[in-house]
Structure formats: structure tokens, C-alpha cells
């Protein structure tokens, strides 16, 4: 009787250990795989952001059309031909400047609500036609 109980305890401990080891190793493996997937996705999206396409007269890189912001100003970034005159106009502000390189960046104030900003590039080479982009940004004070 005692011998049989001892055998039952031995096999119970043995099987319990085997199952526990398998469970722990599986959970560890699963956790590692999930974390790895997120890392890959995050790093994979980075290069696309810096990819500047071939220059047309003007390209707006930032902000995106119909972006919602919670600040009363934004930084407008884009690309155009070097030496172009950039004119930005909205009901809130007018800005005019000449670009010193192909990339431009300027702060622009926003009014509460919808902001329709006309951004026009007049190329230095006057054989190229001016090009206008309309950018809509929402400054919403959601509190």
C-alpha cells in the first residue's frame, strides 16, 4: 500500500514537472515572438517617412491634409525648387518667403476650427508655372 502511494507521488511529481516545463517554455517563446513583431513593424515604417519623391513644383510633407491638431500653430514642411517664392495664406495669416534649398519649413498660426491654407510656389525659373496646394487643418480644442 505504502509502496503504491509512493509510486503515485513519484509519477505525479514527474508528470507535473514535465507539463510545467513545457508550459513555461511555450509562454516565453510566444512572448518573444509578439514583441519581435511589433519591433519589426515600427522599424519598417521609418524609411518611408524620409523618402522624398521626385520634385514637382511643390509638395507638402507635413502636416497631412485634414489633420487635427490641439495647438494654435503648426509647422508646414515641404519641398519645392530652390529659390522659389512661397506664399501661404489663410484667414489667420499671410506669409511670403524665398526658399534657400529644396526643402522648406515654416511655422504657421491657426485659428480655432477649420483652417484652409493656400500654399503657392512661384518657381525662380519663370518658364515653370506656379502651383497652388490647398491644405485643410483642424485646430480643435477638445476639452
Amino acid at each position: 500500500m505504502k509502496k503504491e502511494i509512493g509510486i503515485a507521488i513519484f509519477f505525479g511529481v514527474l508528470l507535473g514537472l514535465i507539463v510545467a516545463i513545457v508550459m513555461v517554455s511555450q509562454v516565453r517563446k510566444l512572448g518573444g515572438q509578439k514583441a519581435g513583431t511589433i519591433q519589426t513593424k515600427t522599424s519598417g515604417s521609418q524609411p518611408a517617412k524620409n523618402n522624398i519623391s521626385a520634385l514637382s513644383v511643390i509638395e507638402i510633407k507635413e502636416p497631412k491634409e485634414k489633420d487635427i491638431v490641439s495647438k494654435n500653430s503648426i509647422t508646414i514642411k515641404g519641398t519645392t525648387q530652390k529659390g522659389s517664392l512661397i506664399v501661404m495664406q489663410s484667414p489667420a495669416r499671410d506669409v511670403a518667403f524665398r526658399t534657400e534649398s529644396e526643402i522648406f519649413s515654416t511655422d504657421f498660426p491657426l485659428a480655432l476650427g477649420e483652417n484652409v491654407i493656400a500654399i503657392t510656389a512661384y518657381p525662380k525659373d519663370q518658364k515653370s508655372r506656379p502651383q497652388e496646394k490647398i491644405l485643410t487643418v483642424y485646430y480643435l480644442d477638445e476639452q
Partner: protein
Amino acid sequence: MKNILLTVFVGVFIFTISTFAQTTKESTPSSTRETKEIQEFKEKLASKVAELQKKNSKAISGIITDNLATRVGMKTLDNVTYEVKIDRELTKIYEIAKSQKKEIKASDLKKGSYIVVSGPESGRVINANYIYVDERFTTGSGKVTEVNSQESYLKILSMEKDTLILDLEVNTRRQIMDAKTLEIGTVGLSRIKEGDTIHYVYKPEDTGREKNRFTAQKILVIPQEYFLK
């Protein structure tokens, strides 16, 4: 006898699993790292969910077509119709005037008003978190084709080749860019010439005159001298 043995076996089996798993989890350095990884994974998951919720929540503007207290019909400038659902407890409604917002009621939303709605959208239905009654402005640019000082208006050929008449009133902000310094200053109608480039902002409201005639909110003139250099 068999029952006793089976009970002992199962009891020891379960006890061993739980004890071993618990000990492994708490005591070894690898389990601490694992817990940290799980925590990081949870945080990343939560941030992704928040990002997706933010992504799903967007702002759409348009004109109110009807108002049924808990539901507002809206048509965008691209002629897309939306149903805006208003939750009496959750939806906040504001009117924007001079960059200040004032809370109003759903019943204050009038047909024809221009609104900006923010909230999650699905299948042309927006569950509004916020509704803002806003002013609608149109911006554009073109060439001045006629300056009428007597009636104080400018005729403009827009970049899209449309002819536009802009009335300059007392409140119209009139500006010009200096051709050399690019600085922006004020300008009178007498300094504006045919052939100048002009940027303008106006409210597309019916003035009761020609269909293409509006009151300018502001103008910015780029003198033709800038392009003659």
C-alpha cells in the same frame, strides 16, 4: 484503493505544476525579463489601440441639411452626405466666433450652418464627440484683370481660369508684398494694377448680385515687378 491512488496522483500532479510554475516565474532572472517583456507588449498594444482609435476619429466639415435633435444631416463641399449622431450626454457642441468657442445646444444647429464634426466615422455615419459651428472661407489666387476704383472692386482671373469679382470693403484687409524685401505691408486700391498677382480670402456667401461676386475678407498682392527681375 484505485480511487485513493488516483486522487493522490492528480493532487500531486496539480500541486507540482502550480508550485514549479510559480517558483520559475518569481525567482529566476529570465522570468523577470519575461514579465517586463509582457508588460512592454501590453503597453505597446495599448498605445497601438489608442493610435488606431485616434486614426479612426477624424474631422469632417460640411453644411447642415437637416437637424432632428439626436441626428444631423450634413453635406460636404464634395457633395458627400453624412449622418452625424449626437449623444446628449457625450457630444459637446460649440460655436466659434473670433477664435473663441461658446457652448451651444443641439437645437441651436441650424440648417445651412457650416460645421466641423469630430469623432469616429463608419460608413458615412459619424458618432460626434464634438461639433463646432464655424465660418466657411474660400482661399485662392489669380491675376488682376480689372481695377475699379469707383466701385471699389477687383476683377480676377483665378488659377483655375474662372473670373471672379471681389468687392473691397472697409473691413477688407489689403496687403502687398514688397518686390525686393518680400515684406508684407498695407496697400491702397490705387497701387494695385492690372497684371498683378493676387491671393484672396472670401466668404462664399450669396451677396444677391452676380454669382461670382463676393466680398473679400483679405487680399495679398504680389506686384508684377517681382516677376520682371
